[in-house]
């Protein structure tokens, strides 16, 4: 089992991650194509990681037509290097990777549908009626053990086969313990599981909520305030806490000892630690401390 650290687009943070005890660096923007590193930054990031003899994976978001050219350049650069994993969140990029034999596609979280990412499925909302909660929690589906809301769209063998035929080797999944039994199906069908330890993406936009709130005018001119800022969004009466980081709303989970032990029952290939203002993991010490804690439980 490997420990990866994901750094979006920040060379200082990358150096902290490289200095840590992690096995692998994931570099790049997962959710926002305006926040993708430039080719020169990617080259530096790759060189730094390679110099430290750590594995490197490039993380890509969904891309618009405007940023497709940049992605082509970046993938061409990486394709000339040794075998590198690319986290894919866009069918267009998956298609490009078919032409890049040096790169290995790994499905990103935007390619996977997990109904249990919905915050209300774990939150008791008394004042409003949420239809799926109302219907599903009382249906025969749950009673018969077919809790469909805890499954993913990869809990179907032909879907996995489709992606494997495109060269996909692994998949990113969220830390949602009630889904773990269903993740096992995916591992058993031959995809490597990468589990994100903290942040579950609840919703993603191109109409970036952070940028709009802070008065940015367009993706092209955005000053990327999300590099340092994030917001807690709260509705106390619904017992609801969400985190807005850039164009993505997350729920934050802190893996418990019990859930870490449960994760041992599934074949996890990689734990992913994200460095950003929401996880507040911004330096080497915190990464090492977390890896130490997890290793102590799982070994």
């Amino acid at each position, binding site marked *: 089992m490997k420990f990866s650290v994901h750094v979006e687009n920040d060379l200082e943070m990358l150096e902290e991650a490289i200095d840590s005890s992690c096995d692998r660096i994931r570099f790049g923007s997962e959710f926002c194509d305006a926040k993708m590193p430039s080719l020169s930054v990617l080259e530096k990031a790759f060189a730094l990681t390679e110099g430290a003899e750590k594995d490197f994976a490039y993380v890509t978001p969904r891309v618009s*037509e405007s940023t497709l050219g940049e992605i082509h350049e970046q993938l061409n650069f990486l394709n000339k290097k040794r075998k590198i994993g690319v986290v894919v969140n866009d069918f267009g990029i998956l298609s490009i990777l078919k032409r890049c034999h040096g790169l290995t596609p790994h499905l990103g979280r935007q390619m996977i549908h997990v109904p249990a*990412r919905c915050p209300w499925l774990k939150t008791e909302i008394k004042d409003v009626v949420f239809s799926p909660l109302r219907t599903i929690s009382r249906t025969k589906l749950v009673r018969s053990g077919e809790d469909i809301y805890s499954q993913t769209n990869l809990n179907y063998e032909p*879907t996995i*086969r489709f992606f494997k035929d495109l060269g996909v080797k692994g998949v990113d999944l969220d830390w949602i313990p009630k889904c773990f039994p269903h993740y096992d199906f995916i591992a058993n069908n031959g995809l490597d599981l990468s589990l994100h330890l903290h942040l579950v993406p609840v919703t993603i936009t*191109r109409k970036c909520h952070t940028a709009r709130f802070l008065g940015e005018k367009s993706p092209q001119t955005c000053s990327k305030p999300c590099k340092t800022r994030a917001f807690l969004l709260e509705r106390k009466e619904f017992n609801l806490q969400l985190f807005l980081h850039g164009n993505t709303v997350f729920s934050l989970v802190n893996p418990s000892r019990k859930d870490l032990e449960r994760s041992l029952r599934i074949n996890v290939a990689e734990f992913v630690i994200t460095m950003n203002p929401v996880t507040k993991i911004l330096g080497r010490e915190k990464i090492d401390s977390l890896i130490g804690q997890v290793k102590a439980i799982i070994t």
Partner: protein
Amino acid sequence: MNRRDRKVERIPKIMAPINSLEGAVRVIHAGADEIYCGVALPSKFKNFFLYRGPGASPSQVSTYDDLGKIVEYAHRYRPRAGRRDVRRVEAVLVVNEPFMSEAMESEVKDHIRSCLDTGVDALLIGDMGVFSIVKDMGVHVPLYASTYFASMNHESTEFFRKLGFSRVVLERHLTIHEISEIVNHSKVDIEVFCHAGGCSNINTSCYFYHIHIPPGIEKHLGSYFRDRERVVGPCSMDYEIYDVSNGDKICKAPILDAITECSLCYLQALVSTGVTGIKIVGRCENVPTQERYTRWYRELLDLITRRNYQLKPEILREKIDSTIKEFEGSQVFCKQKRCYFSPLFNVPYKSFIS
């Protein structure tokens, strides 16, 4: 004639939403070139839905018999004189839940087979598992790639074309320029959403499942609800906003609200992109609303694309203004610039608060 020239000649089809035979009749007479609908799954999974279907919700046609009557009506209908480029009204079946699992397989197969037996013209698909089922069944109707695949570039549209899809519905969060570029570089039909349901977030990655608001509570939830007392996603709610770095409270605002509603003012620009279809959202709307939306776009599109006619800007503006007057709530939408294809970083809620 190259692809750019063909764009000038192309008149997009209007795709209208329905959930009943009555709705089908009314939108077809209002000028729909295509109708689209889903049908509730009949048995075990009838209550399972993520967004709008295939669960048993008011947005679905109730039975396969009803679907059969709808398809029959659409196919029998002959367009009024003068309508171009339309041979008959087509009925598209929505099987585009972005989800499939082993547990659902046999029921979904039966469902698709029952729908195909009614003579539907095409299937709209939003999941690779459903796609696998359809391929396995040897289905011969055209396949359309749903917005749940979130296509935002021509590599993606071409990927779906090579898989066998003949049309791709683009993600909503694109600019007119981006749409135009995708059309230029794609060899597949491109369809875009144009009216209602312009979500704040990317549809396929949004787990803000909609909440049904009981009467009386909407005024507590957020700015958008004050004007529109109906079911809207939690992206419209007010939130207490805190800075994560220091814990300071900043304000209370509907920070996630970027909902858009209408593209009447952008329709001419949209036509010029060369898209082959414009889609109205509203399977969960009532029949008069479905009919009204369709009629607005039909009339405006006919005006914009009339052959041998030099459309004066003031005539176009007059038509748009008179249409918008019919649009309930348009004062708020227009004031807040809740337009499809407005700049991505538009802040509609701020204009309301000020």
